[in-house]
C-alpha cells in the first residue's frame, strides 16, 4: 500500500515537473500568459492595498472624537467644575477637559490674531466649555450618539457638538470603494479562469494526437488531464508571483510621495505593502484560479478527444 502511495506521489511529482518543462519549451507564450494573469490579479490587489491603507489611516479617527459641551452662558465656574466631575464619573467617559470662558477667549485672541477686534467686545461671548473624550468602548457612532443625547439632557447644558458626520460619510465611501474592489476582483478573477481555460484548450488541441495515443493504451480522462491541471497551477503561480511583484513596485513608487504628504499633515503614516500572509493568500488564490480554469477546460476538451 505504501509502495502504491509512493508510486502515485512519484508520478504526480514527475507530471508536475514535466508540465513545467513543457512550458519552458515555449518561454515567450508562457510568460505572456502569466503576464496577463499577473495584470488581472494586480489591479484589484493594488486597489485593495490602497483601501486597506486608507482604512488603517482613518481607523483611529473614529476614536478621536471629543464632544464639545457648551454650557449655558450663565453657568458659573463652580457649577462648571461640578458638571465636569459628574461627567468624569460616567463609565463611558475617559476624560473631561474644562475650558473656562476667559481662557477660551484668551486662547482665541492668541490664535486668531483678532486681538484688537476682540478688545472691542464689552462682554465675553464665549461660554464655559467641557471637552468630553469618550472611552474607546463608547467611541462607536452609536456610543457617542447615546452619550451626546445623555449629556444634552443635563441641566445647564446649552448644546453638545459631535462632528462625526464627515467621518461617517468617509466610512460610507470606503464601504462603496471596498465593494467596487471586490466586484473588480471577482470579475478579474473570472477572467483569469477564462484566460487559463483558453490557453489549456489550445494546448489540448495542439496535443490531440498525444492524448489519443494515451487513451488508446488505456489512459483514463483523469490521467490525460493531469499534466494540463499542473500547467494551470503553474500559470496561476507565475501570474500570482507577477502580481505580487507589480504591487510591490507600485507600493515602492508611491511610498515616498505618500510619506511626504503625510508629513505635511504632521502624520507618521507610511504606505504599507502586503504582509507575508496576504502574499501567500494571493498565491494560493492564483494557483486555485489556474487550477480551476485548467480543470474546466481539460475536463471538457479531453473528453472530446477520442481515438479514431
Amino acid at each position, binding site marked *: 500500500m505504501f509502495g*502504491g502511495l509512493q*508510486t502515485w506521489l512519484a508520478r504526480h511529482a514527475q507530471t508536475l515537473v514535466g508540465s513545467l518543462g513543457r512550458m519552458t519549451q515555449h518561454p515567450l507564450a508562457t510568460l505572456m500568459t502569466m503576464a496577463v494573469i499577473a495584470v488581472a490579479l494586480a489591479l484589484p490587489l493594488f486597489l485593495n492595498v490602497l483601501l486597506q491603507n486608507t482604512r488603517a489611516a482613518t481607523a483611529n479617527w473614529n476614536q478621536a472624537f471629543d464632544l464639545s459641551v457648551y454650557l449655558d452662558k450663565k453657568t458659573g465656574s463652580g457649577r462648571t467644575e461640578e458638571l465636569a466631575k459628574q461627567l468624569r464619573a460616567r463609565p463611558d467617559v475617559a476624560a473631561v477637559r474644562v475650558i473656562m470662558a476667559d481662557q477660551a477667549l484668551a486662547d482665541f485672541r492668541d490664535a486668531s490674531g483678532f486681538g484688537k477686534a476682540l478688545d472691542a467686545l464689552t462682554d465675553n461671548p464665549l461660554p464655559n466649555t467641557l471637552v468630553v473624550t469618550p472611552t474607546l468602548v463608547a467611541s462607536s457612532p452609536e456610543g457617542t450618539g447615546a452619550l451626546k443625547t445623555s449629556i444634552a439632557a443635563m441641566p445647564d447644558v446649552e448644546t453638545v457638538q459631535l462632528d462625526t458626520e464627515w467621518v461617517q460619510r468617509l466610512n460610507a465611501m470606503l464601504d462603496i470603494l471596498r465593494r467596487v474592489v471586490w466586484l473588480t476582483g471577482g470579475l478579474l478573477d473570472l477572467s483569469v479562469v477564462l484566460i487559463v481555460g483558453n490557453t489549456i484548450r489550445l494546448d489540448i488541441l495542439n496535443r490531440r494526437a*498525444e492524448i489519443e495515443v494515451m487513451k488508446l493504451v*488505456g489512459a483514463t480522462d483523469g490521467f490525460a488531464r493531469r499534466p494540463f491541471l499542473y500547467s494551470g497551477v503553474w500559470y496561476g503561480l507565475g501570474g500570482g508571483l507577477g502580481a505580487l511583484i507589480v504591487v510591490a513596485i507600485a507600493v515602492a513608487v508611491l511610498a515616498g510621495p505618500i510619506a511626504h504628504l503625510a508629513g505635511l499633515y504632521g502624520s507618521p503614516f507610511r504606505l504599507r505593502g502586503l504582509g507575508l500572509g496576504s502574499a501567500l493568500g494571493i498565491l494560493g488564490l492564483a494557483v486555485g484560479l489556474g487550477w480551476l480554469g485548467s480543470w474546466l477546460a481539460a475536463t471538457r476538451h479531453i473528453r472530446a478527444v477520442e481515438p479514431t
Partner: protein
Amino acid sequence: MIRFDQVHKRYPNGREALAGVSFKIDSGELAFLTGHSGAGKSSILKLIALIERPTRGQVFINNQNTASIKPRGIPQFRRLIGVVFQDHKLLHDRPVADNVALPLIIAGVPKREIDKRVRAALDQVGLLSKEKCRPLELSTGEQQRVGIARAVVARPALLIADEPTGNLDPDLALEVMQLFKRFNEVGVTVVIATHDVHLIDRFAARRIVLDDGRVTAQTGPLLQTGAAAASSAVASSAAATSAAS
C-alpha cells in the same frame, strides 16, 4: 478470446463497413484478417479495441460482451489489449524508453518495475541500444518495433495490429511478422489485419478473409470441427486459389 456475432457497423457518413460479420478466434491463436482496403479489417480491430461500437450484433472479448462496458470502463479494458498501428503512433517529444513505458505508467506500475519491463520489451524487439533515442531518429522499421514493444510491455493477453507492415519493405515486414509470431508462441493471442497475402502465406495461421464488410472465407490450422470446418475448407481452397492467381 474474440467472438463476433452478426456484427454490423455503419458509420455516421452512411458507409456500411461491416455487414453481418461472425467469427471466433480462440485464446492463443494467431489470426490474420485479410482483404483489400475498405473490406472492413480496420473496423473489426476498432470494434475489438472499443474505438468503435457495433451498430448491430455483439462482440465478445474474453467472454465479456463489449456492449456491457461503459465509457468509464474503456481505459481499464484497453489495458488488456496491446495495439500496434500502421503509423506507429509514437510520441515524438520523448525518448523510445518513455514511449514504451507509457502503458505501464498509465497502469501505475512502480518505477523500478517499469524500467525492468521496458528494457525487457525493447530487448525482445532488438532495440535495447536505442532506448534513449527519439522516435524520429529511428528508421520506419525500428519505429514499428518500438510500437510493438509498447504494445507488449504490459503483457496483454491479446495483441492486435493494423497493417503493421504496410510501410515496410519485404525483408523488414517479414522480420516484424516473425516478431508477432514469437509473441504468439509464448501464448499471446495475436490478430493482424493485413492485405499482404504473400507475406502471410509464409505463416501457418488462421486467416479470415473479408470482402465488402462480409467474411468470405476462413481458413487455418485451428478450425472448428463439423459443418463450420467443412465450409471453411471449401472457402479455404477458394481463398488459396484467389491468392495464387
